[in-house]
């Protein structure tokens, strides 16, 4: 049996109750909705003759943790003769999906599901074809390697791309690694730590000198220090100076190391990211990644260079203070040890509310910013449609929200802070009261000086207490950031270079696709059994509707993704055996998405070959038809472009990207809708140049406009990932198939607007 979903004893019993022996089931799958789209369990089993569908619920009896028995309570059952089932398919709806077929000529819903079961259902369709269509289906182990579940606890990973189970993550291993990571900065951390320890030592001594020692020794006639006023003053000043000095040194050291640590961290993250395959990026939002690089490195840096030392310092200070307090007066110390944390906890609860208020303010300020930037960016449109009033109102709403939330924060600050400090003050008052009572009654030898010192120490406890509470948040932020960092560092690129790649002495440019299959999402084939061959130096055109898989062919040839099945050969060598460097140096692409980096036009053209001469750059720009507009710019080739600089039109950007590809001088040139964003006149000019360029180079042209492809030596037509037609223009016109229809339609459209091709 091919088990796509888990098949247990209760399921076997359920099928047996409708007369299906488990041994007869060839393919089994379960979904999570019933036919009325309510949450339930639906079981689908295909035997050699029939397909059975059971709808119901799994009931669990027995005590959890002990032996439990599962039963499947059948609510409805259906059976279908396999020979009447045709076109078994998964139809995706907005938030759910259906398994449908044509049964005896009529459309039929076999089962419904949420998108959680989508993957299983797609795999089911593949394997059910075995018994239903009586054909052999090769078993692909990948289909059954369900990596969506944590192997330890069986729960689903939140993200199948990130195989991290938050429940089972090995915490100790993680912390160990975090510690290993911080080892690189141990010198810096140690220095900061020593400074902080000195600071806290000085901080702990100071109150003793200025209170207990001063009152009980210097001002008390019985003491041997009596009257040594100058000495005590000098000591106090000295202590203050020493602590200022250590503070300054700590500041300088931290400032010096901070730059280096953040720099290193960002470099680590960025180089890890650059190493990964394109699929890693498509699975994530770029914005998230940018955040990741910037925020995570800051968070980790702060944690290690500030958080950890501060944590240690405060812990040491707290322990030291407590020890001193205990030595001075154990009873009062024990009393403070209970009362201070208690009050600190109350204050902490108040501040938790603060965090939520701040988060709200942050959200509304983000909303206001986005409203503002949206509006300013679209200012022309706002003016053109005279929507100033509405836009002002929109802005006003967001602005009001921010004002309201900020007001709440201020209000809270002004009430909660005094209240919180009052509570902390109360704890002091209690110590004061108890201590005062002890001085008055003379119990346990408490003196006035000791009490003053005591109170100074109680005050010293407040700060570390807050700090330790904050540390909890800080720590969880850091673990998140570090987790993401490790994840990127650990991520394996899907497309990997062979260890000993084949080196071609000189690439000729013969390209062959052999039964290539590819899907971005499992079960949804974008390229399905495509085979074609282009001789070196020849030109092939790829035709098809948008979404037919044309650009995917280019992505596969560049090896931005690897094929699921079949082979792609260049000069008879599988591209998986070629080195990335050789592959990409020999393939130039001009695609519909042009991206130019921030920099000068010359730099952008030189991106292909940094050692290109002025002459090369100008020649490449001339071929691409970019030279004419570049020289008209005041700064010529040295014009800064990209984010925040000169804004070029779509066509101009396209021409620069063509120049970039031309400069690479590749053996294989891919033109993916290269001239789509240009006006007809410019396109003609460039087409001519590109035609010259493609001489002697293998060219793969992808275009919407069929006229662009007329000169191709061969055309292939793609439709829904398949390749139903191929041949020369004349052959395809003769065939009167898809190409003929497309050609006729475009010709008519052109005639209608008075253009004769």
């Amino acid at each position, binding site marked *: 049996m091919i088990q796509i979903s888990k098949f247990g004893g209760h399921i076997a019993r359920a099928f047996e109750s409708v007369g299906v022996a488990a041994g007869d089931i060839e393919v089994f799958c379960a979904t999570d909705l019933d036919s009325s789209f309510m949450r339930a369990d639906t079981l689908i089993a295909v035997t050699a003759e029939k397909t059975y569908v059971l709808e119901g619920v799994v009931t669990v009896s027995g005590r959890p943790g002990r032996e439990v028995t599962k039963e499947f309570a059948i609510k409805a059952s259906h059976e279908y003769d396999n020979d009447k089932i045709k076109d078994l398919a998964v139809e995706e709806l907005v938030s759910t999906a259906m398994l449908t077929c044509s049964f005896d000529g*009529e459309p039929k819903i076999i089962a419904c599901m*949420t998108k959680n079961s989508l993957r299983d259902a797609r795999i089911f369709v593949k394997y059910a074809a075995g018994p239903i269509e009586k054909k052999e289906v090769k078993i692909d182990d990948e289909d059954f390697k369900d990596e969506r579940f944590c192997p330890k606890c069986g729960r689903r990973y939140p993200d199948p791309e990130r195989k991290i189970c938050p429940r089972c993550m090995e915490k100790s291993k993680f912390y160990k690694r975090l510690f290993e990571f911080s080892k690189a900065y141990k010198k810096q951390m140690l220095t900061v730590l020593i400074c902080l320890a000195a600071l806290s030592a000085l901080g702990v001594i100071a109150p003793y000198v200025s209170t207990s020692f001063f009152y009980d020794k210097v001002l008390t006639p019985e003491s041997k220090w009596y009257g040594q006023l100058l000495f005590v003053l000098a000591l106090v000043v000295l202590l203050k100076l020493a602590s200022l000095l250590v503070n300054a040194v700590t500041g300088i050291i931290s400032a010096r190391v901070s730059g280096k640590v953040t720099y290193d961290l960002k470099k680590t993250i960025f180089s890890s990211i650059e190493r990964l395959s394109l699929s890693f990026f498509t699975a994530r939002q770029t914005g998230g990644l940018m955040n990741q690089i910037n925020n995570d490195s800051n968070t980790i840096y702060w944690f290690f260079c500030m958080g950890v030392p501060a944590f240690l310092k405060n812990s040491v200070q707290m322990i030291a203070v407590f020890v001193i307090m205990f030595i001075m007066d154990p009873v009062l110390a024990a009393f403070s040890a209970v009362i201070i944390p208690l009050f600190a906890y109350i204050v902490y609860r108040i501040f938790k509310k603060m965090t939520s208020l701040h988060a709200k303010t942050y959200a509304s300020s983000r909303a206001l910013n986005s409203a503002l930037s949206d509006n300013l960016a679209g200012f022309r449109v706002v003016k053109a449609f005279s929507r100033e009033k509405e836009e002002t109102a929109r802005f006003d709403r967001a602005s009001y929200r921010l004002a309201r939330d900020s007001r709440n924060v201020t209000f809270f600050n002004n009430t909660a802070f005094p209240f919180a400090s009052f509570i902390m003050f109360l704890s002091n008052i209690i110590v004061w009261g108890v201590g005062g009572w002890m001085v008055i009654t003379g119990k346990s030898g408490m003196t006035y000086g000791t009490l003053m010192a005591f109170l100074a120490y109680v005050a010293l406890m407040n700060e570390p207490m807050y700090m330790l509470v904050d540390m909890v948040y800080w720590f969880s932020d850091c673990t998140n950031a570090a987790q*993401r960092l490790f994840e990127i560092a650990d991520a394996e690129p899907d497309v990997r270079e062979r260890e000993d790649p084949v080196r071609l002495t000189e690439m000729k440019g013969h390209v062959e696709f052999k039964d290539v299959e590819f899907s971005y999402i499992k079960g949804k084939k974008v390229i399905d059994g495509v085979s074609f061959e282009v001789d070196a130096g020849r030109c092939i055109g790829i035709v098809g509707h948008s979404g037919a898989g044309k650009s995917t062919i280019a992505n596969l040839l560049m090896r931005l993704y690897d094929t699921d099945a079949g082979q792609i050969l260049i000069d008879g060598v599988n591209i998986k055996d070629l080195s990335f460097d050789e592959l990409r140096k020999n393939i130039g692409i001009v695609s519909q998405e042009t991206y130019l980096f921030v920099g000068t036009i010359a730099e952008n053209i030189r991106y292909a070959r940094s050692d290109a001469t002025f002459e090369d750059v100008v020649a490449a720009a001339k071929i691409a038809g970019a030279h004419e507009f570049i020289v008209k710019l005041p700064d010529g080739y040295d014009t800064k472009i990209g984010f925040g600089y000169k804004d070029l039109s779509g066509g101009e950007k396209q021409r620069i990207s063509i120049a970039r590809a031309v400069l690479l001088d590749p053996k294989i040139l891919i033109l993916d809708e290269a001239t789509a964003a240009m006006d007809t006149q410019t396109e003609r000019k460039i087409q001519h140049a590109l035609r010259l360029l493609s001489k002697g180079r293998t060219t793969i042209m992808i275009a919407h406009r069929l006229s662009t492809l007329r000169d191709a030596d061969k055309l292939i037509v793609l439709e829904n990932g398949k390749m139903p037609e191929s041949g020369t223009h004349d052959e395809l016109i003769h065939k009167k198939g898809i190409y003929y229809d497309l050609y006729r339609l475009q010709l008519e459209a052109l005639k209608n607007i008075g253009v004769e091709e």
Partner: protein
Amino acid sequence: MEEKTKISEIIKIEYLTPSDAEFSENGGMITMKLTKDGETKDVGRVFLHRCFPHETEDGFISVLDRDGNELGLIRDAGDFGEEVKALIERELGRRYRVFIIKKIKSVNEKYGYSYWKAEDESGELEFTVQDTYRSITKIDDDRIYISDIDGNRYEIPSLSALDRKSFKRIELFL
């Protein structure tokens, strides 16, 4: 001066009416016979898409054939009589089926994901959301939907109708 042409004259929206479109049920799905230029054609199964799913439920429904070509628009499902309207509504109900959240029991954020425990009409459900802020879509000030990592949608038809605790749990992400 020549009178300007109205946009409705430039392009004619083809509305399906009971006289040219006959909907019926076949195998639990909706099928249609279309009469055009006096000729009636059985187009078989049709697919209904709301043009404005958040603004109008029974109006402006695009009727597509198996290949995704639009056969026409239904201006108002009520035009076709109660029986067909019910059929259309059932079909749309399937396509736009989302889980309606009645209660949010907990939201835990961990490692960049949030884990939700909620209640819908048929009991408790759990789901995971990536990048929580972006995964919550506001339909209007009071109505939102949440998209989970698998692409399932969970709707909250009225935030103000949520109980206080549930609202507090989602408030920070809005």
